[in-house]
């Protein structure tokens, strides 16, 4: 990768920050030049995250860089502990702190006895992979360090792992997952790593009945929780009607709780309705229904399966992050670190259903039918929390997109 024309893939540090900001009862302290913190406000605001009294920076002077002086970090930790009394202070290294080799963990270690808050350090600094690595590391550290040893047993609660506030429609997906689990089993979400959750919930997460690993980034945390508390794991994400039913069936198998019959019937009815689509697609006289997907791995795989069920062939699946954390990536998914290659591929697509991020949408020819399924959002804003990509409502929405696309074909 050489020239980046659009937005680069966010770093591990950015993933750590947006994950931690999704947790209440904690404060995040960045050790580094203040400009990065100020610059990040716009992005976190777009992700719907509140930073007021949650995110702070120490700033850093030349003396701190040259002499390795950490006095201002020490003082900032004391000050936050005294002024806000959070349960946890997460100390996050900047790229500068990481390059000069500041021992953030060491500082947290000797400062721990001087504060009431728990101090947890992240020393990645933006150099250990993309945001997926950050989401994974955050989950691991929370599962290892914050989940209490003897939690209350919560039979009707399940945890979500591998959730990312950086995903497009994260808030809507969270609401849809809450709905699905409640309707199907009467389950509630315990802790969500990391979205719309709190340190209190994370502390008690060892008492949950099940850990749902939505994407690969949550697997490491799930393994830690399994080894610490024996919590069983179900992996996967509910995309499309059949995908949603399959996901619920896996949960039913693992917990021994059957899916509520009336809800199951509703879902089966949806699956039967969607089964008509391959016939419509076959009736096209000139065109073929083809899709191009650009986005996060689990999203494009899940949506790709749904589209194929509808009779639409997926021509290209482009993943917007690295494949490092994915055990055995699908051969159908392209992971290209070269932006130019990705752009050239998209330039050549005509009369396709393109589900992508805004940057990719910009380079696609106008004869395509284009909708957004991944970050970044450049045109407009993400405001609604009732427009998921996952679950039944997500599939409903995508079916509307498919209808719109099919009307452009002959």
């Amino acid at each position: 990768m050489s020239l980046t024309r659009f937005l680069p893939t966010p770093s591990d540090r950015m993933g750590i920050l947006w994950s931690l900001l999704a947790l209440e009862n904690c404060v995040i302290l960045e050790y580094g030049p203040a400009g990065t913190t100020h610059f990040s406000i716009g992005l976190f605001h777009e992700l719907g995250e509140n930073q007021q009294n949650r995110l702070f920076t120490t700033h850093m002077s030349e003396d701190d860089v040259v002499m390795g002086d950490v006095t201002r970090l020490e003082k900032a930790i004391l000050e936050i502990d005294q002024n806000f009394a959070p349960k946890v202070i997460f100390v996050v290294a900047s790229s500068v702190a990481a390059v000069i080799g500041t021992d953030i963990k060491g500082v947290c270690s000797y400062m721990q006895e001087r504060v009431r808050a728990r101090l947890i350090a992240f020393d990645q600094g933006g150099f250990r992979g993309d945001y997926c690595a950050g989401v994974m590391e955050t989950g691991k550290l929370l599962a290892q360090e914050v989940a209490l040893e003897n939690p209350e047993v919560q039979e009707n609660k399940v945890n979500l792992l591998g959730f990312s506030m950086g995903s497009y429609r994260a808030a809507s997906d969270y609401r849809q997952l809450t709905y699905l689990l409640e309707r199907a089993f009467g389950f509630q979400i315990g802790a969500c790593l990391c979205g719309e959750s709190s340190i209190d919930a994370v502390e008690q997460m060892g008492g949950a009945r099940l850990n749902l690993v939505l994407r690969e980034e949550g697997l490491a945390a799930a393994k830690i929780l399994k080894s610490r508390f024996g919590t069983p794991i179900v992996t996967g994400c509910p995309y499309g009607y059949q995908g949603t039913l399959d996901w619920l069936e896996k949960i039913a198998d693992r917990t021994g709780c059957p899916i509520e019959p009336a809800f199951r019937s509703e879902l089966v009815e949806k699956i039967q309705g969607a089964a008509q689509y391959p016939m419509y697609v076959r009736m096209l006289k000139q065109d073929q229904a083809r899709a191009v997907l650009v986005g996060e791995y689990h999203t494009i795989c899940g949506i790709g399966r749904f589209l194929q069920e509808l009779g639409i062939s997926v021509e290209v699946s482009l993943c917007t992050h690295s494949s490092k954390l994915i055990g055995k990536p699908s051969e159908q998914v392209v992971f290209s670190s070269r932006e130019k290659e990705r752009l050239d591929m998209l330039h050549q697509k005509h009369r396709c259903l393109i589900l992508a991020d805004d940057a990719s949408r910009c380079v696609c020819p106008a004869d395509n039918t284009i909708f957004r399924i991944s970050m970044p959002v450049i045109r407009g804003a993400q405001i609604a929390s009732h427009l998921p990509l996952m679950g039944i409502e997500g599939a409903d929405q995508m079916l509307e997109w498919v209808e719109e696309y099919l009307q452009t074909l002959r």
Partner: protein
Amino acid sequence: MIQAQQTMSDLKKLGSITSSRDIQQLTYAMFPGTHCPLMGAAMAVRGIQKAVLLVIGTDECAYYTKHMTLHSEEFGGVQGRCVSAVLDTRDVTFGCKEKLDAAVAELMEEYQPPAVFLVTTCVVEIIGDDMDAVAQMYTKQYGIPFLSVHTEHFKCENHLPGIERTMSACFEMMRPQEKNNTVNILGQRTGRFETTELYRILTESGIKIGMQLPCGCSVEEIIQAPSAGVNLVLDETALPLARKMKEAFGTPYIRFERFIDPQRIWEAYQMLFDALQRELPPQLEENYKKAQKCVEQVKEKLFGIGYIYGNTPFHCLELNAFLCKIGMIPQLIQTAQIEPEQEKDYLQEILSKTNPYVTKSANIAPLQSLYDVLHPHLYLGHEYPARLRKKGMAVVRCDAASSMLGFEVTEFMLSQLANATEEAHQYQKEVGLR
């Protein structure tokens, strides 16, 4: 919650400031913190038509800079002329030259720019890659100016050095020219010069405007900038460039900042027209008298009104000195920089009336605890109006002044202050402070 009394006891007062290093942060943990010079550089390159901004740094620096430009018409939005070379651990360990070579080759093929600004970030400065030498090499290789701009934030307080260094870097493009009577405009950081009183006065007097850096110019205009008769410095970020141009091309410069004091504005106009060897237009005297009358009209209303000074488009101490002169009371001044020797007139004016607290800017989170102790009427700069209202305070909105220069500034600002004061009286009643 933050202990306001403790916080204030740690702060210094204006009278004891001997240099910028004496200005304390309100707290060690800050939010949101200052902007960085990388943003300043991006702001400056935005106004230089067709020039490409190449950010060399981490994913994060590149992401946020591009993010900032996404809705900028001048930058061209998502497909615009802000691009980056993103560094990974390998580049940090072995140097970023190899990656940069490839990125520049792609850039030259696709964008064909008239100039490229190689903007370094903190990490590049720490690893010590010699971007000045690299820029020189590309200049020779591609035959267009490549200019390095250093933007490490750990060596400075805010984004202004980024603007200053970008403007100063433009000096490299300038070539000796035959002199004419145009006036270059240096340092219009925000807003448009064409909407200002100063612009109207100059054009109505038949004086042509030359290069406008950084608010809107082409690379060709930068090259020809030494042809101007006078450089007009609107902001101190443009001073280093003005000094360099004076030394290299003999171009005199006049400081005409966004002053509010009519007396100072009058003097700046006089100096400018002296330098241009022209008579002062008669209209200016009328404007001067009108501004003075305006001061007299609101003086009584504003007398004794206390305020917190935040981030405004004005010269910090000039504005505060003038407001002291008309009887207002600065209780806390937020600024990153005070130069007692160079700004002694302003300091004397303020300290003869009061001795306000001074703290560094861009830390509004802990600032809120001070409202209940200081009970000011007004906040000058950026704060949430609804939050201030609950404390019996009103915000004075100043941003529109970015597109003003001359006596219009006095009239605008006094009117904003008078309106906000009326609001503050109302809000103080609402919260039982009156």
